[in-house]
């Protein structure tokens, strides 16, 4: 699996992501600068990592979404290439029109930095084949703007088409306002696009991939992607 991580000024999770990808796929990802206009030839997976691109000025992800490299990412996604957008990456993907909706300020107005529980809603996507549907995983979040919103029609379509992939839940998988840390509509933590090749999620699976991190719940996402490309090969 040949991965490329897009690097914007103000991003700070690209090294965590590179470490996770190298560890699990056995191949070091390419780091691609935002001002570049092309992805490395043969890229299988594009990752838009977390951080604070452009200091979150204007709106989170708004300026990064208009960077030159994003035209190449949009073209890559339009051809069916897999795009994994985490945290600030999710905000960038929404601003870039790769995914619907917006990530608004957390309902409680506080920056949240802690582990959360996610219910995996589907196991039949390239990103979640390493999990079982209904499985609960524990991964960290670190964001001030993770409160997913979209208009009623978009939410109905996402739900109707099964495009909500991760939902904030209790440790035993119950979706409940007490476990919906940022107030996201329908406790949405991650969604995929219509074609199923772009995933955006607020939590950080790359930060729970090895024993030294305390947990390895995030491994399934990367291991699943590696399997996806092995099967395709």
């Amino acid at each position, binding site marked *: 699996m040949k991965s490329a991580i897009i690097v914007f000024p103000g991003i700070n999770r690209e090294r965590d992501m590179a470490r996770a990808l190298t560890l699990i796929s056995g191949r070091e990802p390419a780091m691609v600068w935002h001002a570049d206009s092309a992805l490395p030839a043969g890229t299988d997976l594009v990752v838009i990592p977390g951080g604070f691109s452009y200091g979150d000025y204007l*709106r989170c992800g*708004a300026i990064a979404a208009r960077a030159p490299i994003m035209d190449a990412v949009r073209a890559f996604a339009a051809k069916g290439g897999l795009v994994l957008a985490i945290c600030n990456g999710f905000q960038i993907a929404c601003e870039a029109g790769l995914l619907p909706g*917006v990530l*608004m300020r*957390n*309902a409680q*107005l506080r920056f949240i930095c802690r582990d959360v529980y996610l219910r995996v809603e589907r196991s039949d996507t390239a990103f979640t084949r390493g999990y079982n549907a209904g499985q609960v995983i524990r991964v960290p979040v670190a964001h001030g703007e993770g409160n997913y*919103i979209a208009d009623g029609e978009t939410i109905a379509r996402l739900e109707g088409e099964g495009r909500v992939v991760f939902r904030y839940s209790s440790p035993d998988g119950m979706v409940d306002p007490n476990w919906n840390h940022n107030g996201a509509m329908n406790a949405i933590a991650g969604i995929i696009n219509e074609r199923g090749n772009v995933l955006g999620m607020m939590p950080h699976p790359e930060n729970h991939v090895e024993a030294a991190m305390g947990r390895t719940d995030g491994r399934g996402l990367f291991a699943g992607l590696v399997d996806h490309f092995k099967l395709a090969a």
Partner: protein
Amino acid sequence: MTMKARVTVTLKSGILDPQGKAIEGALKSLGVGGVASVRQGKVFDIELEGADRAGAEAALKNAAEKLLANTVIENYRIEVTG
């Protein structure tokens, strides 16, 4: 020759505004009377080169649509002031 313009970006009605709510609460706790509700927005003061008013309005609309506002959640208003 330059022209001055202002683009005002506000949240669409129905979009939850936790920052506006917090400001509303703070105003009430300060004893500022008569505040029914607060919505927070953004103001961009922009200087434009030239004197072509129609061209300026078109450029500002382009700026608002492409970057200044996220039209999923926000409305914008353009004023060329002089």
